[in-house]
């Protein structure tokens, strides 16, 4: 990239390096981000972001990035450590296959938020779309957490193998006032989903069941909701007062009995 463009787009603001993303192609923007990080920046502010994809993808390290505007698809995909605060919405796949780090979204999220994430946390103030948290996992001390202030669409937590999803339903959609869409947690075989409401059993997909919350669950919810409130305001105590529903796997081996072998069948 021409040095002049770079100069015009990059400025300093205290400890922040500010990049003006206006009209930039994602490739230019992401290259610039990598460059300033290589040159030592630890805190970045990206302004006028308007749907640029792949920001902070595969980024390793504890960087702090503020994004003003709409972050495009696959924000922080494969990321390993950075904290990203978005003053605006995020598009599909924010936190996709993320290993560690944090995403705080002051607006809404679209589809497949937190898809396959293995670690780290995502907080969304508003609503999220379809297929959110599909195939979330966990590994050793890494237990990913996704907290949504509003509601979630269909297929939430499908194939979930680990981690925790919390849907608070503090705001509702006029067109679909329920806290969560259909086919919830189909094929779930690990982790748990907490809904701050009651739902009909017919929303549950194959392999999911309800479970009573324990004291441990409440303690966990309180911690996460307090963190949620620390970003977006609100009273954790008040939020905790409502009834929660917990959805867990029927079995950790949902497909165990599906297959046969002529030799093992005794033939």
């Amino acid at each position, binding site marked *: 990239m021409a040095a002049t463009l770079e100069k015009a787009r990059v400025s300093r603001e205290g400890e922040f390096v500010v990049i003006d993303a206006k009209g930039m192609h*994602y*490739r230019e923007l*992401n290259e610039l981000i*990598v460059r300033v990080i290589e040159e030592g920046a630890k805190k970045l502010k990206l302004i006028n972001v308007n749907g640029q*994809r*792949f920001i902070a*993808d*595969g*980024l*390793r390290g504890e960087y702090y990035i503020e994004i003003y505007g709409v972050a495009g*698809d*696959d924000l922080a*995909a*494969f*990321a*390993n450590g950075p904290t990203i605060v978005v003053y605006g919405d995020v598009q*599909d*796949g924010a936190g*996709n*296959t993320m*290993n560690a780090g944090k995403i705080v979204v002051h607006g809404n999220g679209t589809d*497949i938020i937190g*898809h*396959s994430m*293995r670690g780290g946390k995502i907080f969304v103030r508003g609503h999220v779309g379809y*297929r959110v948290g*599909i*195939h979330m*996992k*966990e*590994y*050793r001390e890494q237990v990913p957490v996704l907290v949504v202030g509003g509601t979630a669409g269909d*297929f939430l937590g*499908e*194939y979930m*193998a*680990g981690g925790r999803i919390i849907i608070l339903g503090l705001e509702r959609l006029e067109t679909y006032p329920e806290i969560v869409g259909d086919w919830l947690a189909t*094929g779930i*075989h*690990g982790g748990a989903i907490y809904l701050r409401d009651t739902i009909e059993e017919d929303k549950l997909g194959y392999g999911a069941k309800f479970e009573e919350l324990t004291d441990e669950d409440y303690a966990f919810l309180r911690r996460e909701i307090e963190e949620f409130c620390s970003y977006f305001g609100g009273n954790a105590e008040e939020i905790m007062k409502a009834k929660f529903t917990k959805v867990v796997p029927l079995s*950790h*081996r*949902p*497909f*165990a*009995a*599906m*297959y*046969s*072998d*002529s*030799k*093992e*069948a*005794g*033939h």
Partner: protein
Amino acid sequence: MVRNFPPDFVVRVDKEACINCLRCVRECPFGVHEYDKEKKKWKRHHEKCVACLRCAYMCPTQAISIERSPMEYSPHPVWTNRVRKDIKTQAETGSVILTAMGNELPYLNYFDHLVLDACQVTNPSIDPLREPMELRTYLGRKPEKVDLDEYDGVELKTKIAPNLKLETPIMFAHMSYGSISIEAQLSMARAAKEVGTYMGTGEGGMHRDLYPYADHIITQVASGRFAVHEEYLKRGAAIEIKIGQGAKPGIGGHLPGTKVTAEISETRMIPEGSDAISPAPHHDIYSIEDLSRLIYALKEATRYKKPVFVKIAAVHNVAPIAVGIIRAGADAVVLDGFRGGTGAAPQVHRDHHGIPIEVAIASVDQRLREEGIRHWGSIIASGGIRSSADVAKAIALGADAVYIGTAALIALGCTVCKKCYTGKCPWGIATQVPELRKRLNPDEGARRAANLLKAWSHELKEILGALGLNSIESLRGNRDRLRGVGLSDVDLEVLGVKPAGR
């Protein structure tokens, strides 16, 4: 009910030769040989035998021979023995029949109906012993044109996309740690490094013992995203997105929790003992646009340093799908034909879905050429490549390189007993059981796997020489050097090959 189910094989033991050493009891992982020490009596559970031949070759007195069972149902051309046995198995269990390795039904094998040309008189053949033969192959996107700066010497001005450099157009297919042992993977990794080619990790992640060979390893990103981690992506030489597999097109897979041992859990980054489920689709990919997004997310995450391949099962619409994949930004499309092997697949999918690799290569190559984008990405073919002749034919049909899976395992000792999914591979390949794993020595495995590549490469050079060509590049998509024998007009048209005699 009487279980009227004749065994597939019978174990014959020469009583004269047998010295009751009980070696066979220890060697057979399926519990065929049983000896009652008190009564001093043998019992052979013939119905459990899979003809892996392990016991026969380990018996110190060669007393054992494994034969096809002479007892069969009354012959019937439609209700074959296998059909009847399958029905009985399912009547007993009520479940899906699981199997392994490639398609077993007798579909036409086009490779066996294609012959290669040779030079006679008018254009002399080349002796590879006398003249250099180029097998080197680059996989990845090629530039539209090359701009040179000739101001001060010659310098390349065009930015070339990352390519993989292969010294021979044969790579080891993706077989995951979990489906096969680390000894089997290590054997192939060492062979790949020695010969100057690559192996695939499969979707099980990269075991730390493979790190020294990482620059000869292609990592895989499959729908379960096991082990997918920025370090993993950055460590390998290239990244392959697995959409589908020839042995089970359109379905996902799962590694049962019983096989997720401590080490496998570490490599896949999932808890020990939990099922590793790979959904049928990638749930962040429901369209070519979505695929493009994953391709570029991976390129961004690795700063455009790694080629990104996309693997699909060869299916009916393979040509437009492959074009979409290349247009979506993939540096190569991997086509896996319906004879492709697997460690575990439902038999119904293995035998009835997908199309042969030969027609898939031809139609994809043709379509990419028609659209003028053949140079945007390479074609890697896999699924039933058995010999250097198959490699040469695949390349002449339009492939840049091939992956070999089953052939590589056979080199390591596999006898294609089709029991990989049990995790009890008698030859120490498709297993995690420590006693069984010991049966494969990775030093010897590496030597044998490398030998196979060397032998095939040598034969490829001879084939090129006979064709009067001195580089594999000149064979690629050169269908004029192929002729069909015993193929229909439609087959020939699809393959873009003339009949023998024309």
